[in-house]
């Protein structure tokens, strides 16, 4: 861009009305006021090697040394130190799955198979006990792998249930409709935390003695059942937006109920609700942090634990900024992915 083109762009986009010009100036002032201080703190005066928080604070900069020191604990928690190559591989598997999901050239079926195989590999790697891998109790599956297992498993399991609930709520059969409404309203009306505790405390009472289900899987179940209620309502909104003519054309061709839904109604309903679905998913992903309340070590609880280290008590700003950045990466990935998906699915429509 030449200098004149840049000037033209500025005039057209930032200074086109007096109101816009005022806003531009105001925001520029704010940025100039805040940014230098932040950069000075976060970069210029920051330390990656300081021995403890007092040294950093004396230097007036960020204590990234805390993150460097406790990085493995924040990310992997109490997973046995010598075995931490396993959760590392797990993170790589997740990265590969997420990145290949963005590639729309891959067929949906292969992607689904990839995810199922990937998740099986993840659980095998984390649990061990076969292939000569030492067994690791699921209470020690901590940090980022835990968050990703909860999120991927919970979202994956909730989706089919959400579709059935959404269809059920619009079913011509009164019993099915009533049960769907009941499920959605009851699950949605109680806070997620309460469901976590209920599943934690109540489930063992209903299981035959001797059979226990690890806390992790109970949390996973609570998570999947909870999100399903929300996602069902999103999908129902999509179903209601499909014109009656689409149902009638499918009926007139002799497609039965399930084929009509699967081939005609759901593909359209799911496409138009992508933004709302992703909204629910991002919210659900961040809600995984609530599991720390029942004592599962997600990255937030890991960080809180690390901050108990007497050397780094004052480094909590750095710790939480790091966590925020970590969650932002995943949240932003989801919204980026949804925009790609929307674009490729809306082809041919005007």
């Amino acid at each position, binding site marked *: 861009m030449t200098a004149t083109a840049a000037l033209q762009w500025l005039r057209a986009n930032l200074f086109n009305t007096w109101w816009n010009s005022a806003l531009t100036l105001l925001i520029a002032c704010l940025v100039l006021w805040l940014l230098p201080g932040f950069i000075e703190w976060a970069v210029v005066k920051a330390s990656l090697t300081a021995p403890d928080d007092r040294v950093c604070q004396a230097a007036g900069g960020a204590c990234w040394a805390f993150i460097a020191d406790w990085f493995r604990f924040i990310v992997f928690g109490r997973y046995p130190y010598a075995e931490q190559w396993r959760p590392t591989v797990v993170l790589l598997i997740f990265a590969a799955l997420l990145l290949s999901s963005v590639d729309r050239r891959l067929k949906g079926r292969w992607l689904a198979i990839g995810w199922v195989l990937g998740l099986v590999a993840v659980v095998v790697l984390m649990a061990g006990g076969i292939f000569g891998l030492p067994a690791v109790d699921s209470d020690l599956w901590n940090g980022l792998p835990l968050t990703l297992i909860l999120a991927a498993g919970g979202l994956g399991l909730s989706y089919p249930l959400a579709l059935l609930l959404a269809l059920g709520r619009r079913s011509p059969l009164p019993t099915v409709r009533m049960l769907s409404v009941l499920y959605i309203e009851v699950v949605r009306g109680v806070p997620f935390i309460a469901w976590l505790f209920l599943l934690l405390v109540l489930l063992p009472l209903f299981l035959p003695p001797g059979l226990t289900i690890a806390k992790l899987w109970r949390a996973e179940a609570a998570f999947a059942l909870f999100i399903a209620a929300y996602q069902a309502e999103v999908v129902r909104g999509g179903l209601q937006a499909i014109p009656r003519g689409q149902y*009638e054309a499918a009926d007139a061709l002799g497609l039965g109920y399930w084929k009509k839904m699967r081939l005609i109604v759901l593909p359209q309903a799911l496409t138009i609700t992508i933004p709302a679905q992703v909204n629910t998913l991002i919210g659900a992903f961040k809600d995984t942090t609530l599991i720390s309340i029942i004592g599962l070590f997600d990255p937030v609880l890991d960080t809180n634990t690390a901050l108990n280290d007497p050397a780094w008590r004052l480094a909590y700003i750095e710790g939480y900024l790091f966590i925020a950045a970590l969650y932002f990466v995943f949240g932003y990935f989801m919204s980026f992915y949804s925009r790609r998906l929307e674009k490729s699915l809306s082809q041919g429509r005007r």
Partner: protein
Amino acid sequence: MSDDDAHSMIELRHVHKWFGTFHVLRDVSLAVERGGRVVVCGPSGSGKSTMIRCINRLEEHQQGQILVDGIELTSDIRNIEAIRREVGMVFQQFNLFPHLTVLENLTLAPVWVRHMPKREAEELALFYLERVRIAEQARKYPGQLSGGQQQRVAIARSLCMKPQIMLFDEPTSALDPEMIKEVLDVMVELARSGMTMVCVTHEMGFAREVADQMVFMDRGEVVETAPPQEFFNAPKSERTRAFLGQILRH
């Protein structure tokens, strides 16, 4: 299906239907022979669309009998699906599936309902697209076509199921005037090929050309049924005369 020509393709016997307390169909009786071409007309709100939609059970009748190719329409879902496979329907609003290409719109039902191999279904689809003169648009999405083109695709989509009967529910009412002819031409050709057809339409030129039976409905009743010659030249009922006078004036 059966070779038994003794029964009518479509038979309505004393059919009644209510929307809530509104009596939309009052004692409607009608018989359509194999290869018969019936045009139904009447003022809006006269129940003609409701009547035609009862034939493939998009609407449910509450009294009387409807028989399609000898099978009675009851709430038995297997009967309904069997009848729908044999009865094609073309809607006023086309109702093409916007998320599928033209070709996919056509192959969907043959593949999923008739369990036809995909390759064969595509050949069939291209044959019918050729017949409605739109084969070059096979890879496009419905949203990229004009209204007239979409309606011709909708006709081809129904034909791909090789139906015994075609129902047309005001197929040209949503079209711009310059596109009406291209759709009617396809329908005329279809009528000449011997298809059993029931058309709800205000296109009286089309009716004169292809119909062998005219049906005039008003306020939920069949007021008059007659061959087109008689219907247009010497309508018996006062209401028919008034209606024809209105729509044929210009």
